[in-house]
């Protein structure tokens, strides 16, 4: 596993609202996310996982503290450069897939390349190759409504990976899937997404997928309360059941 830090959060705070209605979503978060590892952000609903993920992805600005993503203080980048940084370096997997219903699977997967100005035919060709790698190549011409949940999430994964981002952020990627499909999607994520030059952050409260994590950061009430690292030592091929049981017990 690469020990370099891809994401560095120091005393990150995030407030919503003001006056009496003020809500403190993040209360001084310190977190390091390393390249070549899959980091799971876990915790109960409303503990600030998604807010932290949004801050790391540059979709929300922190109220205080420092967030360095791939060596850049993303919040300090001017609007246009921040968007360009996100477009180039970040990949997203959403809970509800958020595929464009009018586009085929291949066209959906090609969207980040199209947004970057890659010609359509080239982008779609690359998307088809990637879909094949992810096991849905034969469904490349299908519309999202013609795909199962697992297939849609694989297409979403292809969309997140097609431009070879250095940071992949996944928000509850298995929440809308049954256990078996969720495991399969996480297996693909671990096998295809985790690379020495890429960091993967997964927000989840699905404890069935903890076994895929290299690092688990547990959040509660807007803070990181515990971080456990080196769980899989970069081995993304299988699951150590003894350690998994131990980790479940711990969590």
């Amino acid at each position, binding site marked *: 596993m690469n020990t370099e830090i891809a994401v560095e959060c120091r005393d990150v705070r995030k407030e919503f609202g003001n006056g009496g209605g003020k809500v403190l979503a993040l209360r001084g978060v310190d977190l390091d996310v390393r390249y070549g590892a899959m980091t799971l952000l876990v915790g109960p609903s409303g503990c600030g996982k998604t807010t932290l993920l949004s801050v790391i992805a540059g*979709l*929300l600005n922190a109220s205080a503290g420092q967030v360095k993503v791939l060596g850049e203080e993303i919040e300090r980048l001017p609007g246009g450069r921040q*968007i360009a940084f996100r477009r180039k370096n970040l990949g997203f997997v959403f809970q509800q897939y*958020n595929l*464009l219903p*009018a586009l085929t699977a291949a066209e959906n997967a090609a969207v*980040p390349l199209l947004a970057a100005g890659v010609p359509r035919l080239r982008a779609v060709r690359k998307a088809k190759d990637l879909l094949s790698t992810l096991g849905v190549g034969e469904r490349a011409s299908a519309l999202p409504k013609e795909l199962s949940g697992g297939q849609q999430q694989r297409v979403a994964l292809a969309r997140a990976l097609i431009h070879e981002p250095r940071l992949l952020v996944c928000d509850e990627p298995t929440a809308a899937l049954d256990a078996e499909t969720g495991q399969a999607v996480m297996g693909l994520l671990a096998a295809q997404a985790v690379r020495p030059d890429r960091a993967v952050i997964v927000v989840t409260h699905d404890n069935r997928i903890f076994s895929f994590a290299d690092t688990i950061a547990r959040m509660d009430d807007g803070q990181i309360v515990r971080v456990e690292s080196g769980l899989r030592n970069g081995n993304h091929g299988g699951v150590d059941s003894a350690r998994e049981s131990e980790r479940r017990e711990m969590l």
Partner: protein
Amino acid sequence: MNFVALKMLTGDRAKYLGLVFTIAFCTFLLENQSSIFAGILNRTGSQIADVTDADIWVMDAKTEYFEQTKALKDTDLTRVRGVEGVEWAVKLFKGNPVARTLNGKFDVAICLGLDDSTLAGAPRNMLLGSWERLREPDSIVIDKAGYVLLFPGEPLELDRTVELNDHKATIVGISDASPPFASYPVMHTRYSEAVNFVGRERTQLSFILVRPKPAVDPLTLSARIENQTGLRARTSDQFRWDCVVYYLRNTGIPVNFGITITIALIVGIVVAGQTFYIFTIENLKQFGALKAIGVTNLRITAMIMLQALTVGAMGFSIGSGLCAGFFAITLNNLATRHLVLMWQTVIGTGLAILLVVTLASLISIRRVLVLEPAAVFRG
């Protein structure tokens, strides 16, 4: 991303077709009503336009439009002829006798009496016969629509007789005169005949038609005639506009058409805007995902504008095609003859449709622009 925008648009076929139909309907109404409106107003000056021999019309100082005539004195003709720059000036009579056929069919007619010696102002588009036969006694030239009104279902035929205020007149020609505002028969005859057919007032000189000398500007000459005679002198174009303005100011026509045009615009903006807004709202999550992925607000605005313009262009084309078809079908109908799809209304409607789709998309654009990309994580 244009490809993505267009696929998003056409992917929801029901809304897409609904939007195109709305714009097409709006286009059809706007072009149809504004063309008919302009065509009808144009008719108010038809008899002025048909006189191609003269450039200037001289009339009583208080005359506002063609139908409103007050007889001039014969000496006025002499005075006008005396104005420097006038090549020639001739009399024109306009009256409204009742025309009656032998089988009892009758209608009020527009009777134009032309200068006996020159026949200046005679209709040049003849369908049957010759305007030169007007020199024959009791002769008239009648327009085709008038003939059909007085002799319904009968073939066009010369030398038939009509009575004009109990004076017998013979049809020596059938013209293709421009349709008048009211659908009366248009009859041309010599001045001396016309005053006999109508003849009630002591003087019957309605207008004086003037031709300027070569190189004399009609506008300048009109001003000079007005200064020297105290009469009103207008160029043909000015006089036609006077008629249009008179009807605009003094009739309910613009209000009537204005209401229809306004309704078409409102329906277009509201229905297209609402459908487009719903379309955008239903795609809001997808737009949020695109923003998160790194698509800029400018790009998303361009995508929505492209969708709106595509719908606008398709609807406008279909609506314009339908409208052109409508006028092609009605072109040869007597009541609607000469009403055509005017290029000015096509351009005006195009701009109005551009306004409609721009307004319709603005609300949607605003909704997407204020959308936080982080919202995409909230499900």
